[in-house]
């Protein structure tokens, strides 16, 4: 439902400098959970901002749910369907009361009050922040603020949510809250998720990983496939999930460790199985 064809873009006033996006070709289906990886400056945020026409292609085309992002007449229709959550929760909350902030997008769209009330309450319940609806946002934890930001997007009933490093400023429990919420939205409501992250353990939870470098897509595939390419990832300045790294190091030492293991639980199982199959002495 998202289709980028030869999408190129460079920031104005930056002539001579390398383009931020170079002939990007990406196809994302409705309902997919995609993680976008890449080191700083690889063009992830620039791509994200293309998706709801904050920036528009210089060359090539980007269609999102049938809307060409260069079409100025459909900008608000597009932004209603593609919600955006940013890194710093403090800089995207507009109002001084949680529920007023969740209502902000609906107010902008001119949604009638009764329907607004219903959608705000439902969105707050979905992200489990309903009990905090009358609180002041600046007193919430980072994870709670991000969930409020997600609720504000959710109330607009989008088809897709783009999250640009939403967990970068959070503590581990805040990260877990946000990830749990995002995954639930994907599974239960079928919302397409595009999750930009530096955390490999988050990328592992996606259906698909896209790795960007220098404004280009350099890898694209399911996490198991991507994280088997340990050397390439390292060359791009990226980490590998610990479990995958362990398996990779074992394989490098000639031990027959299975590929495609990304999380700790299957990793433990695999190691136990290797012991059983080959005998303890061998593995040592």
């Amino acid at each position, binding site marked *: 439902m998202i289709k980028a064809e030869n999408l190129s873009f460079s920031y104005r006033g930056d002539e001579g400098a390398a383009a931020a996006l170079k002939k990007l070709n990406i196809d994302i289906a409705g309902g997919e959970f995609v993680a976008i990886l890449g080191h700083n400056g690889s063009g992830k945020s620039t791509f994200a901002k293309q998706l709801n026409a904050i920036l528009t292609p210089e060359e090539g085309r980007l269609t999102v749910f049938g809307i060409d992002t260069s079409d100025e007449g459909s900008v608000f229709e597009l932004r209603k369907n593609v919600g*955006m959550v940013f890194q710093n929760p403090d800089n*995207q909350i*507009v*109002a*001084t009361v949680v529920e007023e902030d969740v209502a902000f997008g609906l*107010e*902008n769209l001119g*949604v009638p009050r009764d329907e*607004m009330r219903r959608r705000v309450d439902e969105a707050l319940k979905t992200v489990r922040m309903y009990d905090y609806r009358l609180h002041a946002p600046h007193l919430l934890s980072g994870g709670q603020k991000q969930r409020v930001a997600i609720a504000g997007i959710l109330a*607009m009933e989008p088809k897709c949510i783009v999250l640009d490093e939403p967990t970068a400023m959070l503590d581990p429990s805040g990260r877990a809250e946000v990830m749990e919420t995002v995954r639930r939205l994907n599974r239960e409501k079928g919302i397409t998720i595009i999750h930009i992250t530096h955390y490999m353990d988050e990328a592992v939870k996606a259906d698909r990983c896209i790795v960007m470098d220098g404004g280009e897509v350099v890898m694209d595939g399911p996490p198991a496939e991507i994280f088997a390419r340990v050397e390439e990832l390292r060359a791009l300045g990226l980490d590998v999930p610990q479990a995958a790294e362990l398996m990779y190091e074992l394989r490098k030492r000639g031990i027959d460790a299975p590929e495609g293991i990304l999380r700790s639980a299957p990793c433990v199982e695999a190691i136990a199985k290797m012991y059983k199959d080959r005998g303890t002495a061998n593995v040592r």
Partner: protein
Amino acid sequence: MLRDITLGQYYGVNSPLHRMDPRTKMLWVIYYMTLLFMASSVWEYALMTAFTALAVKASRVPIGFITRGLKPIAILMLLTVGLNLFMTPTGSELWRLGFLKITDDGVVIAAKMAVRLVLLIIGSSLLTLTTSPIVLTGGIERLLAPFARLGLPSHEIAMMMSIALRFIPTLMEETDKIIKAQTSRGADFESGGPIKRVKAMAPILVPLFVGAFRRADELAVAMECRCYRGGSGRTSLRRFAFGRDDLFALIWAVALLAAIITIKVVTR
């Protein structure tokens, strides 16, 4: 801690004054001030005082909160009362010390001045004590809406006010952090003369401003992402409607005016 500073002085309880529409309250404060400035006889002052006491009682805000608002203007009050007390040339002399003299007229004028100032502060702080800042900004937007046709950016004014309200605690917190960070690097904000202290503020203000501009930038993008396009065609989650309490406010307004006119006619 800087961030303990609360904004405004909203005291959240349920009272007829709290339930009133913010527009009613704002118009009432303007009306109340007009009456106060038109008051001349002692009887009118007595009536206004009695009415104010009644309003304070109805607001269910503790007296302590209300008198707290008087503290910042104590000096101003002493000054005006003192000036009126000693500088009124008319009336019969009661007391004299060199060029300073107190006359009976002076005493009355000073007393009226004091009462007027106190009532003025109490009346206007009742507005902010019974109306949360966000409701107040919403009320201002709606009150100014008719002037939008004359080119007054009423929505933008209200939006600016509410964003300021939203970011003041955040910026306070940030200032706190910056002060701690600079102090831990050996910056000294406490000692030295005024010029040295002002100079010491630079390492706080520069990062604060840089941070504020970055925030403003990000917030603008975030607002655009949520379909913000100015005030036209916007709806509001909050309902602004005149209710029973606003009707009472109107009745009180008429009654107070009638009483004041009666006093003016009778004492003439």
